[in-house]
């Protein structure tokens, strides 16, 4: 599904962020990346989505066997990669429904049937316990932090990606909302068996609901340790320093 090979990435002002990052995910797998602040986790998700603010200096990203480095962000998205963002932005004047209909039309040769689209959208709002009126409101405008995160998952449900990147989905979600959102993700994964999930998080709480196959610890732009879910709990108990995966200097950096 996704193979990242020895990836080196820097910002436009030449600050090196990813330093030899590698990862391999099979279809249907759930992987987790945990790591201290500023270690490059969110950058990784943006690089996969080909954000033009980052330059790949070395390495490759293969999605379904093909390099996506030559592709633009919209081309990557249309191939089935979806990023639920850490801080979803608001866009005044563009309604949720209009936006999603345009996004679906962009992916399809045929125009989306409005009746079927509205039915599916209404169902998604219901599944996520969101008021239906929100579909006609501007994207994330006046939404709470939790509503914005739910809105990301709503978009995921309608756009039907194959590879889903969740960048700190759990931040801003209350306990009940986190359960609802994770239930929706699990339902989606049941329905789309080939779909894979890459979760970026600081806390194992979300992993109580989304059961990962592999947990990676990322330090200073690369994976330093991988294991099963017990690694996440060990990390919570001992911290990065206690795991012997990082030097004192790197912790304070």
């Amino acid at each position, binding site marked *: 599904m996704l193979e990242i090979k020895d990836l080196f990435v820097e910002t436009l002002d030449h600050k090196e962020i990813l330093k030899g990052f590698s990862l391999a995910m099979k279809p249907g797998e759930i992987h987790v990346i945990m790591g201290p602040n500023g270690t490059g986790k969110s950058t990784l998700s943006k690089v996969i989505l080909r954000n033009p603010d980052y330059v790949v200096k070395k390495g490759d990203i293969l999605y379904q066997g093909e390099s996506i480095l030559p592709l633009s962000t919209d081309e990557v*998205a249309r191939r089935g990669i979806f990023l639920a963002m850490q801080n979803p*932005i608001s*866009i005044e004047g563009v309604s949720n429904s209009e*936006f999603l209909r345009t996004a679906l039309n962009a992916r399809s040769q045929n125009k989306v049937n409005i009746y079927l689209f509205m039915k599916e959208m209404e169902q998604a709002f219901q599944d996520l316990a969101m008021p239906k009126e929100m579909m006609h409101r501007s994207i994330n405008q006046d939404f709470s932090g939790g509503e914005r995160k739910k809105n990301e998952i709503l978009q995921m449900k309608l756009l039907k990606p194959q590879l889903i990147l969740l960048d700190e989905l759990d931040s801003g979600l209350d306990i009940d909302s986190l359960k609802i959102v994770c239930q929706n993700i699990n339902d989606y994964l049941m329905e789309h068996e080939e779909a894979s999930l890459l979760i970026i998080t600081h806390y194992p709480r979300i992993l109580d609901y989304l059961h990962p196959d592999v947990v990676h610890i990322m330090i200073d732009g690369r994976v330093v340790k991988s294991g099963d879910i017990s690694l996440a709990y060990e990390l919570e108990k001992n911290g990065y320093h206690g795991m012997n995966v990082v030097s004192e200097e790197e912790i304070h950096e």
Partner: protein
Amino acid sequence: MNKLLLTRDGKKQEMDSNLILEENTVIINETTFLFIDARDSQENLTLVIAPEVELQLSILGFQSANHFSFLLKKDARVSVSHFGIDSCDSYQVVLQEEGAKIRYCYSSLTRNSAVIPIEIKHMAQHTESEISNHCFQVAGDYTFDVTGIVLKNCAGCICNQENQIINLTHGKSKIHPNLLIDHYDVVANHSAYVGKFSKEVLFYLASRGLNPKESYVLLLTGFLLGKMSLSDELKGRFENKIQEYGGERNESGGFSNFTA
């Protein structure tokens, strides 16, 4: 819906009898919907809204240079959705009596240079204005000169203005957001933005599969019409005008006349 057509050759009205057109003044005596279609016209038109009357007004200006004046009496309520294409329409609002309220959304899509003077004058207590001025500037130099005035002893007023110019070229864009407030018990805010659509917004849309041109169309339509209160018919008509202005739609859904 009542209609008033303004052209270079004069006015043509299709209005109910409760709307009175006298010279350059329309008197609104009953709650009503009015659409003003202004093509290539240069009129000075005054609308007087009687006490406790509600007016829903939509204006489409095409290559026009009209000046609209609004005089609101006690507890009158006015909502204006004003869209101009290559026009330099301007407006002035006088909230003359207590409790009068106006919400004015003005949007302009233009390649012409223009200075647009806009004035909102609060002359009585508890009057409210919410003004939004947006311009998508394809070429030329463009200025919004927006002044909100609250006179002395006009307590409890709300005087808010929000102004944005999205500049597609290297032409000059200016916003002068002025608030002249002569009383202390007043809420008054202004905001001004000149620039492009932000790259974060474009990345967000791209991450959902929209190419740059599709994103521009969506953002442009939302920017110009998103705040307006329009009937479905007028909304479709205004959207079509934007599309016509943008040129032929290409295969990816974008407009040939606009580039990201």
